[in-house]
């Protein structure tokens, strides 16, 4: 008599269903969406606690690092990734660039009424796979739904928490005169992948986003024993903007060598075609490292030995400059400023 009919509530129709306002209502529909979609794919012991927040173990010695990043990329799916894995990689990288080991993520979803559940499932699966690969679980989350026309499919905000061992914290303030500037690989891949997709530029060799979590590469760099002063991921605004930020924070100038900058031929061609400069185009799986000059070769070797750093290169040096200019010796033989990005080169890139 008291047997509970298990399938009384019809399962979520992931194949044909759409997000509706009830999915954000806090009621049964939302509960179902969380159970059958989010918890199913992202599931882990902390998420399974089912409370309003996650109860986490104390990470031990060191300082905590927390970083947050909102993702509004358009299109949601692009060659090499989608908003799901991007939202995991982006925040892990922000935590890792502080010198920390990323431990946990939270994820907040803003869904637009009418968004296909099949697309949402694809995105959540991609997030889950990225989180699993990175070993950084999503431990808590939130879902809201806005009326049709008030969002653009889905926006995802992720927050990451990590721990940095005593004395290991990094900062953009630590670049020193004489330091070497390294990049971990080719520039502008993510931005041009998005741009090519958005403008339906049918390039023969498709440009693929480099979206990736970089904490593994950083660990390998640490183990080389090189004296790393600054790490930063050159996302929006590209390498140029990132280096200008560091130059300002550290109160130094920089000189790049144009010939040393790694750029894929397809990205270069697409930039040429669209009148863009790869130095200003976003990356999602690359980092800039600034280290003591004596350690540069050692660090370069460690980066190149890692799958995410195969195309790493030493691209410049830090020097004294009261104006904090980033300059470049052009392949042509002249000199020029590599300025901050002005205006918006590519909106909604991540």
């Amino acid at each position, binding site marked *: 008599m008291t047997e509970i009919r298990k399938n009384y509530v019809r399962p979520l129709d992931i194949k044909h269903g759409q997000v509706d306002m009830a999915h954000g209502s806090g009621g049964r529909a939302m509960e179902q969406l969380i159970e059958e979609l989010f918890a199913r794919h992202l599931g882990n012991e902390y998420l399974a606690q089912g409370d309003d927040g996650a109860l986490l173990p104390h990470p031990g010695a060191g300082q905590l690092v927390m970083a947050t990043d909102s993702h509004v990329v358009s299109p949601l799916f692009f060659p090499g990734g989608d908003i799901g894995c991007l939202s995991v990689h982006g925040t892990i990288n922000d935590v890792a660039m502080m010198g920390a080991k990323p431990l946990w993520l939270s994820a907040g979803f803003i869904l637009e009424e009418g968004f296909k559940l099949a697309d949402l499932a694809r995105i959540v699966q991609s997030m889950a796979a990225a989180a699993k690969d990175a070993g950084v679980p999503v431990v808590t989350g939130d879902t809201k739904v806005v009326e049709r026309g008030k969002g653009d499919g889905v926006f995802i905000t992720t927050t990451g928490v990590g721990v940095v061992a005593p004395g290991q914290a990094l900062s953009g303030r630590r670049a020193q005169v004489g330091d070497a500037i390294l990049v971990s690989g080719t520039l502008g891949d993510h931005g041009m992948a998005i741009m090519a997709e958005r403008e339906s530029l049918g390039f023969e060799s498709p440009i693929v986003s480099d979206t990736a979590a970089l904490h593994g590469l950083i660990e390998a760099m640490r183990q080389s024993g090189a004296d790393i002063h600054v790490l930063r991921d050159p996302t929006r605004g590209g390498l140029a903007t990132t280096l200008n930020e560091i130059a300002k924070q550290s109160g130094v100038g920089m000189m790049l060598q144009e010939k040393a900058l790694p750029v894929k031929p397809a990205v*270069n*061609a697409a930039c040429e075609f669209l009148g863009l400069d790869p130095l200003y185009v976003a990356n999602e799986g690359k980092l800039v490292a600034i280290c003591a000059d004596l350690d540069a070769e050692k660090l370069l070797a460690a980066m190149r030995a890692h799958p995410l750093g195969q195309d790493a290169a030493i691209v410049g040096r830090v020097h004294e400059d009261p*104006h904090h200019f980033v300059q470049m010796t052009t*392949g*042509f*033989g*002249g000199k*020029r400023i590599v300025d901050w990005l002005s*205006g918006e080169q590519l909106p909604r890139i991540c």
Partner: protein
Amino acid sequence: MKYIDEFRDGDVARGLAEAIRREARPDRRYHFMEFCGGHTHAISRYGVSDLLPDTVRMIHGPGCPVCVLPIGRVDQAIGLALEQGVTLCTYGDCLRVPASDGLSLLKAKARGGDIRMVYSSADAVALAQKHPDKQVVFFAIGFETTTPPTAVAIKQAAALGLKNFSVLCCHVLTPSAISSILESPEVRQWGTVPLDGFIGPAHVSTIIGSRPYEFFAEEYRKPVVIAGFEPLDVMQAIRMLIRQVNQGRAEVENEFSRAVDRDGNRKAQQLVAEVFEMRKHFEWRGLNVLPYSALRIRSQFAEFDAEKRFALSYRPVPDHKACECGAILRGVKRPQDCKLFGTVCTPENPVGSCMVSSEGACAAHYTYGRYKDVA
């Protein structure tokens, strides 16, 4: 990249620089104006001036379409978007051009104007087809290079019978701008702007050919060398200009022979002539009102003329008092001579139009060269 890198080769550049140094006479100075923003950009971006001897000075010309667009025209476009509720399409560079009341198209967009950035005039036509309930206006700017695509768009719209597409035509003509500079008192009477020759337009010349410049060479005794937009093109053209000056010649020479011939693109010229006719006068930013210097849409295509469809009238608006864009566009002043340069006026917050486009003299100097001012 193939066919591009060859024109940016540092070793060839050093060889050319050496040749220029050898040929430039130490006892005189050479002042050349590069007409186009494309050349200005290449010179700044690749550091071409670093490779030139001190005796050679490059003067930036007015050939940057966004830079010569007067406030009154941008105001018209903003008015269409904000007051008439049209969907206004334009090339990206236009969005940040400062207009009246602290507005720009970008700011008008934030205020709710339906303003779209397009990559070609065809995108605007496609938008009109897709949204038959909206009036779509293409804000058409630029020199002769961008004029044929606008003509195509108008003909396309006519063929499709579109009732919701029109063009706010602000196309201008290169030869008029060159005349205006050569006729300016600074060049002609006072000699305050010494001008020994021109680097002639690259892309514009693919359309109009090299013939239109022959008049300037003969009448004003100024050598013209048409050059491509790659840094080696520019250096080669400088060398050719120095030779002409040294030999007392004033001819039109063509460095950009891989793309330009004497007659240009006849088909494009015919298309333009079919759709457009001369305006009696047109205001340019910095050069004031120039006679027969711009195009308007022929009456045959009047229904696609936004000025007629929306009964627009033109109200000229003076530039900011301290802004030196006018003098800079005529070669009278350099960007760093302007009080506003780099302080009040920056690429983030442009006061004058030369700070907007990457081809503008001020933006190019700010972005690529300002370290030289403080060194």
